[in-house]
């Protein structure tokens, strides 16, 4: 029904997808598994027509004929419907309005035919027995119901191939059951479905076959019988750890950061971290692992005073409670953060390298509020060189730099404050191998100098290679804690998935 042959997709110098061939049969649920960054999203985007024909090598076939999607519309016309994690609805409109959005039935060409619209919506929802009020405002629906509406919308357009990207990531238990039951029923009617999920238990319950991707390539396609949890994890992690990440083990110093029984809720009151405790010593790297949404970034942002409300627990820096007062107080106390989303939280893109480097440490080069330009220039130049930032000069605009150089600017800004504890959130995401190695070297330099490092990374080999100890988070809780030797990728993955160790 749907087949890809030797799909290869490159972004600049990075190969996101390498020679991927999968096939999908009518009445089949085909699961895609892999670590973050394994190429699942890229594959979906090719199938959805987000990356048009011509931008990739290989073939996509629908019903035995080559499909050359130029846009998402072509893909939809071929019967493919992609249901993303983030669903776009017009919240103030009703469910029925949203179902027919863009294809509203009209009367006399101009007037909205409300009766026809509602009838069409009811029919679409009833096709798979979804119990959702078509007149309810979209915004009043929970995430699970919103997903069902999205599926109804796809069916209303006569889609025959559903692609679901981590549909259960944000769902509660009962909603998951409803969704899975819906998918099983749709399968019985001959629909084909590509199902992407980190939850191996769901995959095993649902999928007829599982394809595992790693580093953009197909590792294996397994039948349901073959796909036990252990096998899946082995295929997902797969590789041997190389010397690339090797860091000399630390000689741990005194405890720098102590987190005790920390529980944190977000602005809407939902608990994002529950009973998290750990210690971080001078000269040590503590790795924080886990899947997306496990609470890794939330942990760092909360320690930095930029996220959530503390429900319980305390945080001590050098034995003293970390002062409240947001990032300013955290920085002053010696805690620095390099955020995951550097373009949004890390940089003033329209400004120069010098502007960004200096931003957190202006006081040191100012007298009575006036900047000492010469001193500032000299300091910036020093950092530019020691971080080996490749740019025309300090005046180069940061927005024009490569990802790696941008990341070095963010690192420089954080380190210029002379922190005792450095928190790095995905410090190597989206940067090339050369820059990655420099980041690793920098981590080594920091710990040699007695800094303590808290490292969040989705790349298991990186996490294992750099960390002295690793804490795996699972749904806001500590899923497991591993010493350097004990942290096998399989064990980490199982801890992240919440499976018994």
């Amino acid at each position: 029904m749907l087949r890809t042959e030797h799909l290869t997709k490159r972004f600049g110098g990075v190969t996101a997808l390498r020679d991927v061939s999968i096939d999908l049969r009518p009445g089949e649920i085909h699961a895609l598994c892999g670590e973050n960054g394994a190429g699942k999203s890229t594959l979906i985007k090719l199938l959805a027509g987000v990356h048009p024909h011509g931008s990739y090598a290989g073939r996509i076939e629908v019903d035995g004929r080559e499909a050359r999607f130029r846009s998402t519309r072509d893909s939809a016309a071929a019967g493919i419907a992609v249901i993303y994690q983030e669903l776009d609805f017009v919240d103030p409109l009703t469910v029925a309005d949203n179902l027919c959005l863009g294809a509203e039935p009209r009367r006399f060409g101009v007037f909205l035919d409300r009766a026809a619209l509602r009838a069409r919506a009811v029919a679409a929802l009833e096709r798979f027995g979804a119990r959702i009020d078509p007149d309810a405002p979209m915004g009043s629906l929970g995430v699970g119901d919103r997903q069902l509406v999205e599926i109804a919308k796809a069916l209303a357009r006569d889609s025959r191939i559903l692609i679901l990207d981590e549909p259960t990531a944000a769902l509660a238990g009962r909603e998951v059951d409803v969704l899975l039951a819906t998918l099983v029923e749709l399968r019985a009617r001959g629909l084909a479905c590509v199902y992407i999920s980190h939850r191996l238990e769901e995959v095993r319950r649902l999928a007829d076959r599982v394809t595992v991707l790693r580093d953009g390539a197909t590792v294996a396609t397994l039948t349901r019988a073959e796909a036990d949890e252990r096998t899946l994890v082995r295929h997902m992690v797969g590789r041997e750890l190389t010397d690339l990440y090797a860091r000399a083990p630390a000689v741990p110093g005194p405890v720098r950061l102590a987190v005790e029984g920390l529980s944190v809720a977000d602005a809407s009151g939902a608990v994002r971290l529950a009973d998290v405790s750990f210690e971080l010593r001078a000269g040590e790297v503590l790795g924080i692992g886990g899947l997306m949404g496990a609470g890794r970034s939330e942990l760092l942002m909360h320690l930095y005073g930029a996220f959530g409300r503390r429900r319980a627990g305390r945080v001590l820096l050098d034995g003293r409670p970390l002062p409240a007062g947001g990032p300013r107080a955290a920085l002053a106390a010696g805690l620095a953060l390099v955020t995951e989303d550097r373009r949004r939280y890390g940089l003033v893109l329209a400004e120069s390298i010098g502007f960004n480097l200096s931003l957190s440490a202006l006081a040191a080069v100012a007298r009575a509020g006036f900047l000492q330009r010469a001193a500032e220039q000299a300091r910036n130049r020093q950092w530019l060189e020691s971080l080996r930032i490749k740019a025309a000069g300090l005046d180069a605009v940061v927005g024009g730099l490569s990802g790696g150089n941008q990341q070095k600017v963010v690192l420089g800004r954080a380190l210029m404050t002379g922190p005792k504890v450095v928190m790095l959130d995905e410090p190597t995401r989206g940067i090339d191998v050369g820059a990655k190695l420099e980041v690793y070297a920098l981590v080594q330099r920091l710990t040699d100098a007695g800094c303590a490092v808290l490292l969040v990374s989705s790349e298991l080999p990186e996490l294992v290679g750099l960390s002295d100890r690793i804490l795996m988070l699972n749904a806001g809780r500590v899923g497991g804690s591993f010493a350097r030797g004990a942290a096998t990728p399989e064990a980490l993955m199982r801890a992240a998935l919440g499976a018994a160790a």
Partner: protein
Amino acid sequence: MRAPRGSDLWVLLAVWAGLVALFGAFGPGFLSAATFGSVANRIPALLLTATGMTLVMVTGGIDLSVGSVLGLCGAVVGVTMVDAGGGLAAALAASIAVGTALGAANGLVSVKLRLPSFIVTLGMLEIARGLAFLTTHSQTKYIGAAVEGLGTPLAGLVVSPAFLIALAGVAAGQGVLSLTVWGRHLVAVGANAEAAAIAGIDVDRPRIWAHALLGALTGVAAVCNCSRLGSADPNAGVGFELSVIAAVVVGGTSLAGGRGSVAKSFLGVLIVATLEAGLVQLGASEPVKRVVTGGVIVAAVLADTWRRRA
């Protein structure tokens, strides 16, 4: 924020020089000390408020109430000097105090209550104008010689003390923006408030203070205005906010925040005022003046954006 370099300024300087040359060619008597004197002595209020407005707009805010606050501060000057018998110093102090208070109120309400400054200052526009009418009982106050000193051209010079004060204000404003830690914070907050907060910058206070500073400068501007006219008109400054914003935007300051230059706003004011003077001297009618002024504003902004892209 980098100090504006020659290359940042030359487009606007060229536009201004072009206008002067154009009017000089068509209007006999335009190229005279008297013309430049009359332009210079007319713009102190605009210069001072444009300086403050640039700082506010760099932080990503806007103040629509400057015209009304100018009217109110003028009314305060009138009441202080005519009804309370105060001197110029007392009037100046009262005017700055009122301006600062209203500016700070704009800043506090918009920043702390997370309301767009566009909306908050729109409300202040009405409030301040109403207060201006209330304080003067809607009557123009004739102050006379006591206030005129600032607005009268200096002996031997064609420009007034008010113009020199305004120039000092422009220089100080540019200095604050490009030479101080606070100025750096203004730019960072306006360009990317989230990143600024993560970088450990207090993102609220710079915005509040920028509004308050604009208020204070508006207070000084009101005194300059009164001294030029010898009287306080509670209707003064109706529509003034648009002139200020136009001049600042012509000077290349972004409405979205994060980018701006007081020095370039100065040139923006100069361009708008020269245009006005030239058109009157050519005898252009009111509608023609408006059409041409609007066209030049758009053209100047286009020229500046074009240069930035090139």
